[in-house]
């Protein structure tokens, strides 16, 4: 008997058709992947399968129980980790875990083995309030909470978004172990290496299933979406010798905790500089100091020729910034957002109008000029946010995990924009958790425990540490970490 059986499932919200005649089945004990861009209908599908939503048409059953009539039985048997799994911010790490364990009628001790690999990383902080953890740490705790009980079917909605590569690997190893205990797992993910860990995957797009098959089949059939040809960095090695960013012995301490602990580096003008590190290594803190949002505790630095301690208002005139949280106004239209930020940097109306048309043409966005940003798909929003952040031709642009949760094809397009910017002489300072993106950078640094552990071109690092690719380089360094939260 199949663990999950879905026949012709449809669901709409008002005018939006979230799912259209979706049918598939998952065998007992299978690790099944659901992949597809943001807004494809994945979350709706999960919610219907968990009996949280009613389908408009079609039927679905989990472990033989119908999702409409067998609500109680299903809820007794499934585990679900929503995309934005939220923990109780005011409870400590341990209290959260204990609560969810009790909720599912089990205890931490009973299931310690099944969460050990990840829980040991956050265990040193078990007395800390969850709200004080960094984003990646929270996600790890959420994983532990989802895995602490042993349901017969487990639904995971993009469980590793924002988690560093090392922890992602550990997480998927855990999933493979669970599979051996006959647990059925349905997971969605934007990461290709994770897709390859599944036995079968379904490609969902605009509410329809486009294909089901082994990961290799799907990734080849839909090559354009998932594995577009790598892009070439057009002019590597022709950077000027002028420094756009200079940092010497920079420290930021919160009490006795050194989030950034004595880092020094320089970034040349027009360079694409990858700023890598595990969750909680101190990347965001360092970036906040460079953008003039926070004062360094010690050390000094210069961005675009201005001191970060004293001339931070000057710096702000010459940089662009795009943050982890999506940073355009959702209730303004595309054109209104552009004109707002352009106006802030002192452009006049005529110039704004001209440059806006240029930009929208270039992005092929002209049709959406007067669309509210909130109704754009995530990938588009991020491209737009990036374009807005370099609209005033800054010397340096800071990108904080700009491509989180976006499908590979859109990420490629995004990086094309980055290359274009670099060609115009804009220095790009970017953080990312995607190691394929790390390869695109001219130079990268890897931060571990608040210190820079490695710095150089991707090739140099691979050679120096004797690792085959960036993924291994990163894993090799990040595993040396002794602390794991900021």
């Amino acid at each position, binding site marked *: 008997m199949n663990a999950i059986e879905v026949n012709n499932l449809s669901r709409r919200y008002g005018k939006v058709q979230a799912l259209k005649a979706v049918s598939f089945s998952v065998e007992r004990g299978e690790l099944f992947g659901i992949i597809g861009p943001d807004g494809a209908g994945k979350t709706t599908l999960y919610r219907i399968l968990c009996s949280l939503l009613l389908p408009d048409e079609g039927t679905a059953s989990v472990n033989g129980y119908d999702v409409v009539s067998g609500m109680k039985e299903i809820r007794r048997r499934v585990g679900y980790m929503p995309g934005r799994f939220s923990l109780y911010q005011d409870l400590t790490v341990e209290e959260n875990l204990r609560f969810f364990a009790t909720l599912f009628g089990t205890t931490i001790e009973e299931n310690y083995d099944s969460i050990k690999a990840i829980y040991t990383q956050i265990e040193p902080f078990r007395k800390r309030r969850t709200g004080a953890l960094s984003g990646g740490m929270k996600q790890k705790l959420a994983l532990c909470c989802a895995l602490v009980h042993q349901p017969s079917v487990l639904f995971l909605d993009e469980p590793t978004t924002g988690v560093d590569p090392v922890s992602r690997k550990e997480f998927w190893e855990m999933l493979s172990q669970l599979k051996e205990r006959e647990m059925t797992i349905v997971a969605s993910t934007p990461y290709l290496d994770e897709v390859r860990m599944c036995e079968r995957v379904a490609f969902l797009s605009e509410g329809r299933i486009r294909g089901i098959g082994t990961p290799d089949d799907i990734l080849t059939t839909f090559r354009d979406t998932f594995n577009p040809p790598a892009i070439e960095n057009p002019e590597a090695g022709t950077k000027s010798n002028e420094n756009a960013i200079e940092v010497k012995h920079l420290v930021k301490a919160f009490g006795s905790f050194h989030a950034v602990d004595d880092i020094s580096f320089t970034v040349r003008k027009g360079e694409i500089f990858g700023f890598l590190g595990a969750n909680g290594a101190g990347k965001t803190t360092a970036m906040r100091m460079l953008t003039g949002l926070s004062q360094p505790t010690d050390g000094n630095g210069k961005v675009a020729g201005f001191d970060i301690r004293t001339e931070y208002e000057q710096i*702000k005139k010459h940089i662009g*910034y795009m943050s982890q949280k999506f*940073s355009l*106004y959702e209730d*303004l239209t595309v054109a209104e957002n552009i*004109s707002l930020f352009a*106006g802030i940097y*002192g452009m006049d109306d005529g110039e704004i109008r001209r440059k806006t048309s240029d930009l929208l043409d270039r992005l092929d966005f002209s049709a959406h000029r007067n669309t*509210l940003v909130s109704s754009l798909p995530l990938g588009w929003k991020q491209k737009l946010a990036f374009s807005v952040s370099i609209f005033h031709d800054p010397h340096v642009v800071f990108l904080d995990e700009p491509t989180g949760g976006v499908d590979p094809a859109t990420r490629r397009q995004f990086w094309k924009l980055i290359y274009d910017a670099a060609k115009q002489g804009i220095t790009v300072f970017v953080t990312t958790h995607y190691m394929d993106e790390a390869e695109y950078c001219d130079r990268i640094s890897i931060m571990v425990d608040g210190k820079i552990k490695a710095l150089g071109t991707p090739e140099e690092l691979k050679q120096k540490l004797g690792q085959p690719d960036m993924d291994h380089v990163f894993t090799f360094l990040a595993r040396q970490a002794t602390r794991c939260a900021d």
Partner: protein
Amino acid sequence: MVLKYLLRKEFTQIRRNSFLPRLIIVFPIMVMCVMPWVMNMEVKNIVVDVVDNDRSTQSQRLVHEIEANNYFVFHGQQPTYAAALSNIEHSTSDAIVVIPQHYSRDLVLGRTPQVLVAANAVNGTKGSIGSAYLSQVVIARASPSAASVQSQVSTLYLYNKQLDFKRFMIPALFAIVMMLMTGYLPTLNIVGEKEAGTIEQINVTPVSKWTFILAKLIPYWIIAFFVVTVCLLLSWGIYGIVPAGSIALVYLLAMLLALFFSSFGLIVSNYSDTMQQAIFVMWFFVVMLLLLSGLFTPTRSMPYAVYLTTYVNPVSYFIEAMRTVCIRGGDMGSIYHQVLALLGIGLLMSMWAVQSYKKNC
């Protein structure tokens, strides 16, 4: 110039919001149409029970007098005091008049009979005003000598000859409108940007904090200005009440209060991280400021220590000055020290507000 773009953004956002435009329209209308009727502490319709232990012509004349008086609602005659008291306990009546035995005999003999007036004083104001009027009626009947003295005393009520409660309350309602429009709304707006993360984006741009703060406040000041106008028109249209003094002074006072509330809201928003926190903290202080401002009860009845707080309570200055202008028809000369105090407190708060807003920490 940057201000222009920021202002355009704020107005667009207010317009697009599903809730705010409705609030801005509905709130003043509700405040002006409903509140004056509700916030009416007028004492009237006092329900009276009479216990007549004398049952003479004289005593019945007194009973009829009470019955005929428009001020009271005559509930009936009760056989005993206990029966009348039970009515009070059921809240079906408010006061009892007990006419003693030998009432008419005492009157004839020239002695003063002792009539008992007992009022439910759980609500002290109602009890004391009610019993005072009852006493006057009784005295006029029962003690001619005292009545003649009473007739020498006359009372002239200035400014509000009909003793209309609405005239008293409407100027104070402006304080509530300003509080919401220039205090609450900008605060929620700023904390909302904090929660959404967009404020980070503004903080890394060269926008100066003055520009940013002004861009947040100016739209709500304009809205407040508009709302005050609507309120003035409504109070004229519905109740026929127009300020006795100069309209310009009304606007001046409203704007000074706006300065205070905006600064105060800004301070709250700088110290809170979530909307919920901001709302609670604001609510707490606003309730205190309003209750202790003399909006409902005279400040001079407060204990001395509490009365001292009115010296630093801008709402108190506002309400006093507003009533002077609107009801008593005062001019600048009558309210200059309230204006100065409001201005001083407002400026002090705005300095603190700008000081506490940090782009770099």
